[in-house]
């Protein structure tokens, strides 16, 4: 396949960015999208042009490091992570536009790399169960009904890639926060801190300059792990309950 790439190049956080066009020939449909970018970078290096910076690590769809906007869609045309997208999803002769996540809470660091530190700070605000090492009862002390365990699991599969924020017209992080609130809120271990957790995490996402949620649903539509949209309802229900009790 022959393709034309339009890639966002930006030297540093405070520099102006611009789209730059590159042509690639002999692209194999079996290449992953990131392998195609590897091939581009090898070519650029040999031509003494600086390679394109992009985040990636596990390349098997689980670490959440990769993520770019491809032709206007977070992670591109398939519902998966960028590393699991393959060139067979494109056609010979296509022009493909590649940009970083766009959100003021995720400033661009260089080219396609953004700073997602805000997600870690939302977790710091309460996305955990306080269970100091060594204090745990036997794992079977507390049976959990399978439907609850399964729902907790579905929410827990979030990889923190940030596609939800990139896709949201408001750049809201609601699906990310709701996934954690739901994961821990469905489990007995998560109950003691449930009421305060939701308030603290929502306050932190507001402090990070994410936009508000207006129930558009773009987040769940692009989520590579299929985090259900109704986790946001769960969050809102928990939040109302907490605020009603005067927490927060």
């Amino acid at each position, binding site marked *: 396949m022959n393709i034309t790439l339009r890639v966002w190049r930006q030297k540093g956080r405070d520099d102006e960015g611009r789209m730059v066009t590159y042509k690639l020939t002999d692209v194999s449909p079996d290449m992953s999208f990131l392998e195609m970018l590897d091939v581009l970078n090898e070519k650029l290096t040999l031509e003494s042009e600086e390679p394109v910076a992009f985040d990636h690590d596990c390349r098997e769809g*689980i670490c959440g490091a990769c993520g770019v906007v491809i032709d206007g869609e977070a992670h591109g045309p398939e519902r998966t992570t960028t590393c699991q997208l393959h060139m067979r999803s494109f056609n010979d002769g296509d022009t493909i536009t590649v940009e970083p996540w766009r959100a003021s809470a995720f400033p661009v660091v260089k080219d396609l790399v953004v700073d997602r530190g805000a997600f870690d700070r939302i977790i710091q605000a309460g996305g955990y169960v306080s269970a100091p090492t060594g204090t745990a009862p036997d794992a079977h002390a507390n049976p959990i009904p399978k439907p609850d365990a399964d729902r907790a699991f579905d929410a827990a599969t979030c990889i923190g890639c940030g596609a939800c924020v990139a896709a949201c017209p408001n750049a809201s992080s609601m699906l990310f926060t709701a996934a954690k609130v739901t994961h821990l809120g469905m489990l007995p271990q998560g109950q003691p801190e449930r009421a305060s957790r939701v308030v603290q995490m929502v306050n932190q996402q507001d402090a990070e300059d994410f936009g508000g949620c207006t129930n558009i649903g773009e987040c769940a539509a692009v989520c590579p792990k299929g985090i259900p949209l109704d986790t946001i309802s769960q969050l809102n229900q928990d939040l109302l309950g907490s605020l009603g009790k005067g927490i927060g």
Partner: protein
Amino acid sequence: MSENDLYIEGEPIRDEKAPEGPISERWDQRRFSAKLVNPANRRKLSVIIIGTGLAGASAAATMGEAGYNVTTFCYQDSPRRAHSIAAQGGINAAKNYRNDGDSIHRLFYDTVKGGDFRSRESNVYRLAQTSVEIIDQCVAQGVPFAREYGGLLDNRSFGGVQVSRTFYARGQTGQQLLIGAYQALERQIAAGSVQMHTRHEMLELIISGGKARGVIVRDMLTGEIETHFADAVVLATGGYGNVFYLSTNAMGSNVTATWRAHRKGAHFANPCYTQIHPTCIPVSGDYQSKLTLMSESLRNDGRIWVPKDKGDKRDPRQIPEDERDYYLERKYPAFGNLVPRDIASRAAKNVCDEGHGVGPSGLGVYLDFADATERMGREAVESKYGNLFDMYQRITGENPYEVPMRIYPAVHYTMGGLWVDYDLQSSIPGLFVTGEANFSDHGANRLGASALMQGLADGYFVLPNTINDYLADGPFEAMDESHPDAQEAKEQVTSRIDKLLSIQGSRTVDSFHKELGTIMWEYCGMERTEEGLRKAIELIRNLRSEFWRDVKVLGTNEELNQALEKAGRVVDFLELGELMCIDALHRRESCGGHFRAESQTEDGEALRHDDEFAYVAAWEFGGDDNKPVLHKENLEYEYVEMKQRSYK
């Protein structure tokens, strides 16, 4: 002392910290004899932890809770992304929830045998004892393990064992365990007991007065070279499988932290022990950047076969039963498709070498779920393995519900690593090593679902109960950046970076890395020979000198520069690769994942030579132009009888 053309044999060593007495009491005994640090004094002590995977995040969270001042570094943009996250299948624990005859002793026995009698009995026993606490700890954190309708935890079986002791969270066990440890870590960061530095890479160890006292790190966003001090340093930086270029490791996984420590005096143990995982998606082209594992759990229900006829190119569904060779079930009826990884991998290589391999390259075997689907129904297969099937389909474009998967072995894990004593302390006082980065528990082959167990055992339970014995003598003399030992370490880092940026040759970093990987896979992979290893050593030496003449790294240090990061890692892989070959060459026996063609049974199985090689090979760095020095730590077996492994 004796010397040959490749290495010098030095004095034997032993584990001075290993307690004696009945094996089941040794860990209690060590915890009791270790000096304690009272809570008020912990505030005066500092610890640096490099890496935030299972072994690093769990240690940082636990030591932060205990009241030490912890500073943590990871190269990723968030600690949640460490490669432990990619472990799929599960975590072992001797809970005996199945009432199927499991016990701490059986997990211990299986692990020593699985490791082909090249691990320490005391360490493995402690690992088995600790395994039960890990599951409790993770459940308390909210890790959503798979459950049955009664609400209790589910289990499955893994290779090399005949009980069901593997706990799992669909095919994402590593992710869920790591997120549990990450959340515990973030809680400590919020509490102020842990300082986290993301996008920082350790490039040198600072040693002063014979003790590990700090690190030099590079801020990967600004290029600033920073100096950090502490009373002890912990390396939890994972394995070095990426020396093969293609592996199941993350792209950024590297040996730099442990290799830099090795160059400063830490012994590197058993570097040639590499695990080649039998069930990975085959290579599809020369652009390939990494290999993807298909969880070993698939071998619970999938059947592995190749066509009986060589070069049979028919659609697998058209090949009748009697023209298929279910070679694992045929050769190993007792364990069938669930033989240990080293055996399954070599068997796949052998059938492909004989011409029975499938797929475009002929380097593949079928993993077939047709029988399982008929027995359990498609829905049950989907709920158990759905995400793995989806991943396979995304990568290959083939539907595994319809057509058997094609799999082939790939580099997955390294059992070798920095030598540590029972306290997890390296041969440098004050330098501790946890998880895959150390060598301690898996011998010459690791059993499935034991990596997560070891990483969390080390981080939650072992290190926090042994490092106190060392820290009790601290705090040590205060240091600052002007200290000559710190200056020297920093100078080593800056001059290396300057040199990499100044060569401006004609070849990219990746081209060198790929060439190194090809050499390692060809000569130091699934089958090794004296002749091949000698050739590899020559090739690696030549490649290394070409690298320093002709590598091309663009840009500057003072920015995010991913090519520069890679170049620094490849420098260390180019040195490590040679030591791996020397280690493989000196060990003239086969054991576990190390298969020397010259040492096999009549059936082609690994043949150990216990009289000569029942030891840990701990290598001391000899200097850039000198030979490495081999120190042997003798291995003794009191509780498990050493015999030829049999899975028939």
